[in-house]
């Protein structure tokens, strides 16, 4: 079964173009489209997709609000922010809201498919510019309880850009166990996404900033 994707954008022509292009990739299946944030949340609840491509600037309910709602209610669904240059400043907000990564609307078409696949695999990919911007912001609160040795190990690998599968292979545990560890890590750090967990690792010196 392919990666189930929902497209959210207020511009019909963009949704149409994305559907056409992504439809070429056999691993990706477009399961639904929404024109604004409110529609997106309803659709995700209904379809439980693997990945949501989320436009940020939309009328009524914007992409950031929708991302936060989706990540809170459906943590299994990853969100990729889809932005144009005009919304660049919103990227950091989107990451804080729980987006795993972001794509500019001028991105090479191949990178678009790769990003969706990475997100589906739980891989964090951020540009150095966005990492720097996020790191400049106020530090997140201290973990409510310290991470275990194993969790710290998982966080280090996660921050290095490994997927769940790769982490499982490296630590010789099952992928399901990795997911459970990640879930604990997010809960203990009080963050919404793997990306924010990775940023925490960078900030605490667990690893250096990665390159996408």
């Amino acid at each position, binding site marked *: 079964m392919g990666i189930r994707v929902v497209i959210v954008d207020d511009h019909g022509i963009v949704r149409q*173009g994305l559907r056409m*292009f992504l439809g*070429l990739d056999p691993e990706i299946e477009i399961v639904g489209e929404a024109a604004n944030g409110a529609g997106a949340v309803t659709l995700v609840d209904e379809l439980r997709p693997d990945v949501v491509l989320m436009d940020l600037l939309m009328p009524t309910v914007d992409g950031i609000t929708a991302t936060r709602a989706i990540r809170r209610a459906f943590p299994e669904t990853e969100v990729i922010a889809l932005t144009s240059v*005009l919304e660049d400043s919103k990227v950091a907000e989107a990451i804080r809201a729980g987006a795993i990564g972001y794509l500019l*609307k*001028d991105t090479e078409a191949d990178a678009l498919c790769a990003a969706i696949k990475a997100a589906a695999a739980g891989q964090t990919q951020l540009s150095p510019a966005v990492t720097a911007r996020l790191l400049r912001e106020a530090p997140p609160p201290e973990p409510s309880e310290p991470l275990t040795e194993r969790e710290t190990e998982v966080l280090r690998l996660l921050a290095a850009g490994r997927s769940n599968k790769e982490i499982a292979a490296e630590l010789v545990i099952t992928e399901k166990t990795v997911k459970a560890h990640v879930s604990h890590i997010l809960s203990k750090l009080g963050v919404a996404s793997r990306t924010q967990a990775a940023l925490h690792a960078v900030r605490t010196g667990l690893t250096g900033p990665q390159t996408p």
Partner: protein
Amino acid sequence: MIARLRRLVPSGDAGGNALSSHPGLRALAAALLVLVALLCAWWGATRWYRDRLLADRRDQEAVSVSLYCNALSLAIQQQASRFQELHAFVQANPTDPQFDLHFRTYASALYAGSKGIRSLLVAPGDTVAYVYPLAGNQSIIGYRPSDDPRDSVRADARQAIETGHAVLSDPLALPRGSVGITLYQAVNGDMGHWGLIGMLLDVSTLMDDTGLSAQTGSFALRDSGGHIFYGPPEVFARNPIIGTVELPEGAWQLGYVPRDGWQVPAAEYLAFDLAGLAIVLLLPGLTYLIINRQQQLALAVERRTAEIAHVSAQLQESHLLNEQTKRVAALEERQRLARDLHDSVSQALYGIGLGAQTARRLLDRDPSRAAEPMDYCIALTKAAIAEMRALIFELRPDSLEREGLAAALAKQTEALQLRSGLQLQSALCAEPALPLEVKEALYRIAQEALNNIAKHAQATHVEVEMSEQGGAVRLRISDDGVGFDPQGEYPGHLGLRSMAERARNIGAHLEIESSPGQGVCLQVRVPLAEGKG
């Protein structure tokens, strides 16, 4: 400039406050100063005036007194000449056997002719033998002046005998409280010294003859020896007017003091004093009024200057505010254009990119399916071109003026149709005869309405209509979208407000009809006549 004016205003206020808190202080001080100076002058003037009045009165009295003195002097000399007649009579008849009778006859005539004579006496051999009148004077018979116990009387008698001239005695007290003076002269017979004659004069009666009366004041007489013999002696201690009474031998002094002393009646100087006082009080009042008025004027000028400066500063400020508003408006306009570019051209180009990529891949795999993305690209290109035209139209300031409102609305609807895929029907009349600012406002209202439809309405059909009827231009835009409650709060309400404001500015009537689920119908009516104005 503003900063400088602001500095001026408070300093002006401060000065104004200091003055206004004591508006008449300076004037009051000046008035008091004038009052004090004038009171001193007034006091001096009243003193001087009273002295002058007194001096005048003394001068007047002095004239009267000298007249009295002359009169008294004359009266005495008159008596002295009568005495000379008596002397001639006696000298002629010393041996007359009927001397007694003749003397009485002569003396009675002399006596009756003059009130001042108290008695006449003849003393042959220096012993008084005849006296007239005899009644009450019998005691004088046998009196010898040269044997009088008083030195002065004896000296007078001796002098009269030795010189042969008439001798006036010093004043002597007479019985019944009167003062008398006596004239003595020697009479010579054939055998030398025969005897003496005398005449006793009553000074009071003589004084009465002069018309000098105790009613107008007190007067007193003193002889050459300083002996006060007539009148109250204290007169000479009361700063009297002194007149000289010339006598055949020596002189007397007459002292005169008015009955009420040397005082000027209040009535004479009261008017002067009061008039002076009135001036004294009036002038400080005038000074106060004048200076106070000046101060008030200066204050008013100062206040007005401050006000003008303040208003000027406000004008500058409002000018700056206006400039700022314009800058903000320009900035908002640029942001709107950027948003429009993002919403339309930028999305279209992204779509074209995606479509081209898709087509490129399908050419390798399944060229028969490449037509769909290619058509998509072509449609997007058309839409992008329409959007660009509409945007460029807006960017050129004279577009509306050059191409007209109808053309502008046509461009907008075409761009929206291509961008959104909405079904648009437009019915636009010929270019209406409206001023440019009215056209501009209508265009912006239409643009805002179409934007709202594209963003919020979720409509499928949109109608744009411009018509001219009944002397008014009507613009009507309606859709079949989700509608909204015009009374509710929406993020788009800012847009609604700006539409309403634009309509109000051109004197147009704006009407928006809608309810949830019923679409929106917007109408603007602007009268042609008012539009031309």
